[in-house]
């Protein structure tokens, strides 16, 4: 099907990074949470509303959350029992890999990671892990070892709120990345240009207007990077000076014709530090990185006012702070620009935001860690939904990440197609209707509990308004709200004088939940309400 992309030209947002001093209502707080976490559950919104925007952002950026417990063996089945790792035990201590356990552990790893998002703390950390994953892409299908995948993910989380340059350095020697971009087979005789290229094109200086590195820079970087191998006994990186190209590496005018002089022995790995220092000496790195942050957290298109008022000052700050990301995130997330009302709902939810956000907003109860088989099983079911919607965590489509974050001019509109839009609706319909089941357990949306968590659910106007505010980044028109009230909550009754029919039904249900007919009335109306609200295009906006 050919798509006609509407050539609308949404108004430019010209505000800059001066601190936001405006309203701090559920609208702003939910905007902050939707963008920095997955979904904006009401309890979290209420929590942050008690603070100032600045304190709220600082809390989200706090970097003292302990690292999560590692994934466990959830994967024994009728065809395979892990003889080494007991059921429910941490499998990341194992150094034995074979055709039977590797795929199962990779699967376990992905569900574990998905579970960290579903069960996230009030922190930006998991959103940043996803950001970094999309920045320093690896694919589990290519890396093809569960332990590498897990350790790569741990690295992202350790540095999620750390230093960009430090992470580039660490990533350069990370086994998963060495596997993914062939660094582990790159030798002086046959330098592999893959990492040397992507290091510049995708990870640091980018391809923006201020980036002018050359093909010879790619070749020179590839030579610098020779020497890494992987030790498959310990599943760690080792440096082999015999594989390293000891010659001098000449870089282009873009790097001021810098020469990295060839080194020998174990010391030669120091050339990598020099390479990264040289790359980071270009201001373009900070700009490229801030543009990427902007596209991930604010809006897909960066026009001239945004470049000047947001990107450039943030990039300058990033350089000044020696590539620490927290100050830059704080500046962006507390800025007038970020809280500019014109940005609310301006993004289309990536599938992970859509699926994880839905689970969190409706407080969908996953089994406890002690029921790890079902817990991982349910997480896998929802994770597969996100994958079907074209965001398969751990396996972006290619080294550039998910197209929605970079592909002009469609950007995040790419998430919505004639295939994925019905699938999104089917997922939310299913979560409202019957949810997902396994082993006699069920996860899904408890519509009554959700309605009860809102202020004055007995008042149909407040119930709908509260639901819309809790679920949408944008408002609905009064006509639409009226339509929803009349056609869903009031069975076609119209006029203010009919509101009490819903009120009576709700109150009667609270008083006598065993009255089957009334329970049926209330739950069916609420299911219709939430199916409808989650099916409307507004729910796809972030």
């Amino acid at each position, binding site marked *: 099907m050919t798509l006609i992309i*509407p050539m609308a030209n949404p108004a430019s947002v010209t505000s800059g990074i001066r601190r936001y001093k405006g309203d701090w209502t559920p609208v702003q707080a939910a905007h902050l949470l939707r963008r920095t976490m997955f979904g904006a559950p009401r309890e979290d919104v209420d929590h942050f509303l008690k603070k100032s925007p600045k304190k709220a952002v600082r809390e989200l950026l706090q970097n003292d959350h302990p690292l999560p417990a590692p994934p466990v063996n959830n994967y024994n089945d009728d065809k395979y029992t892990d003889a080494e790792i007991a059921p429910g035990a941490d499998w990341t201590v194992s150094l034995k890999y074979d055709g039977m356990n590797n795929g199962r552990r990779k699967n376990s790893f992905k569900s574990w990671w998905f579970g960290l998002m579903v069960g996230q703390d009030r922190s930006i950390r998991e959103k940043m892990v996803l950001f970094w994953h999309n920045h320093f892409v690896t694919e589990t299908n290519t890396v093809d070892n569960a332990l590498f995948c897990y350790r790569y993910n741990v690295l992202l989380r350790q540095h999620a709120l750390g230093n960009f340059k430090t992470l580039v350095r660490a990533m350069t020697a990370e086994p998963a990345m060495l596997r993914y971009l062939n660094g582990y087979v790159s030798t002086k005789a046959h330098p592999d240009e893959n990492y040397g290229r992507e290091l510049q094109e995708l990870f640091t200086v980018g391809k923006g207007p201020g980036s002018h590195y050359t093909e010879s820079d790619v070749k020179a970087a590839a030579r610098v990077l020779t020497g890494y191998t992987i030790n498959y006994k310990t599943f760690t990186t080792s440096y082999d000076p015999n594989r390293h190209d000891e010659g001098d590496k000449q870089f282009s005018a873009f790097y001021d014709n810098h020469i990295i002089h060839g080194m020998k022995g174990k010391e030669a790995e120091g050339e990598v530090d020099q390479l990264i220092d040289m790359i980071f000496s270009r201001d373009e790195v900070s700009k490229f990185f801030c543009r990427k942050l902007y596209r991930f957290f604010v809006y897909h298109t960066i026009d001239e006012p945004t470049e000047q008022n947001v990107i450039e000052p943030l990039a300058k700050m990033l350089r000044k702070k020696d590539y620490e990301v927290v100050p830059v995130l704080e500046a962006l997330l507390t800025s007038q620009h970020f809280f500019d009302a014109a940005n609310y*709902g301006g993004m289309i939810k990536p599938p992970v935001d859509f699926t994880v956000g839905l689970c969190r907003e409706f407080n969908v109860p996953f089994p406890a860690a002690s029921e790890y088989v079902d817990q991982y099983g349910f997480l896998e079911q929802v994770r597969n939904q996100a994958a079907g919607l074209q965001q398969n965590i751990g396996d972006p489509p290619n080294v550039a990440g998910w197209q929605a974050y970079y592909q002009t001019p469609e950007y995040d509109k790419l998430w919505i197609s004639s295939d994925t839009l019905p699938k999104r609706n089917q997922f939310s319909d299913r979560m409202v209707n019957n949810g997902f089941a396994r082993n006699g357990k069920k996860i899904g949306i408890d519509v009554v509990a959700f309605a009860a968590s809102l202020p004055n659910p007995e008042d149909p106007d407040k119930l709908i308004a509260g639901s819309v505010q809790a679920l949408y980044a944008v408002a609905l028109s009064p006509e639409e709200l009226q339509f929803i009230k009349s056609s*869903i909550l009031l*069975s076609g009754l119209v006029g203010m004088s009919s509101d009490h029919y819903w009120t009576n039904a709700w109150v009667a249900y609270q008083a006598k939940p065993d009255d089957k007919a009334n329970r049926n009335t209330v739950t069916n109306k609420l299911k219709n309400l939430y199916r409808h609200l989650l099916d409307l*295009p507004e729910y796809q906006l972030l």
Partner: protein
Amino acid sequence: MRRRDFFRATLPVVIPSLINGVSLKALADSPFLRTVARGAGGDRVLVLIQLSGGNDGLNTVIPLEYYSAYHSARANIALPEDKVLRLQGFDGTGLHPAMPELQQLFNAGKLTIVQGVSYPQPNFSHFRATDIWLTGADASQILPTGWAGRYLDQQYPHFPQDYPNTVMPDPLAIQVGSLVSPALQGPALPMGMAISNPNSFYDLIDDKVETTADTRAGDQLAYIRQMAVKTDQYAGVIKKAAQKVTKQSDKYPAAGKNPLADQLKIVARLVAGGLKTRIYLVSMGGFDTHARQTDGTDTTTGAHARLLARLSEAINAFQDDLTYLQVGNRVMGMTFSEFGRRIQSNASGGTDHGVAAPVFVFGEGVQPGIIGVNPVIPDHLTVNDNLTMQTDFRAIYSSLLEKWFAADPAETAAVLLKNYPTIPLVGEKV
């Protein structure tokens, strides 16, 4: 009303599969094909008009036969005897003065009145009573499916997986003006789709997407809405059917003046445009007239009169249009409401929830007349007295299924979960 994506059916959109051969084979034994083979019912359409709120039947169809008892039961809202519209051949019964068009349709033999429709142990809750009517349940029974949904599921098995297909390329049922009714709920999914706002219908025909704000969010919304229309498996056939009809009756009021007429106008267009859709649902609200249902000085005016005037105007324009479009012989319609209202009026010039009420059945194919007798108003009337049931509403469903849709009695009993007597709603000549 500015609802936007009306077009996305609440029916979860299912990617059409098995468009040809295989699904035809799957359908080969369906009762529907047998119906087609029988040559009756297969191209017939049923239009259900829901009057939400509980229509005051006594002030809709007036028992002139018992006028004084009628008047004394509700003096503050009773219609003057001389203003009540007379029905040919039925001196004891008349219509509300706001419905001259329905009077003409009755006198022309295109309208049948079924008196005293209800069910045993009637329920006075809007929600529950509505569910009972829409699902076809007993008062004590909770059914997860709608009566029309069960019929469609029986006639079109394997919906939605095997649809659309060459035998049924069109929606099985279409709701116009609101979300898909529980009446259309099938065993797993709604058996119909919704055109929940007339504007969206015309937007579709004109290839327009409702405009959104010139903002970042508005730009994204416009895109998603456009995709929703593209994704709708039935958007194409509906558009094509609508485009075949370029002129309709001039009896419809201007758009927006009479929402029911706006809805029925779309129904007529789709029927005449060739959709094979079997059942349409339309609705109007406002019938919950607890207070001031008439104007104090003139009981022929006021809120209830305005509602009935719209109903009458809309049905008449629709009927005229069907004739004009030469599909009048294929369409039958019925009105219903979740209950009637109390015999006695209340002090605030309105009526409270009641029981039995008349149902209108209209179309060229009706057996004209009145089924049942004028409701008897008891002596020594108390505020709690109600009109008694004469006909179970499911006997109407049963009659329409058997005599209009040519279902056999076993099929009808399977849909309605019981045997109900048929009543002479459908004329012998059709």
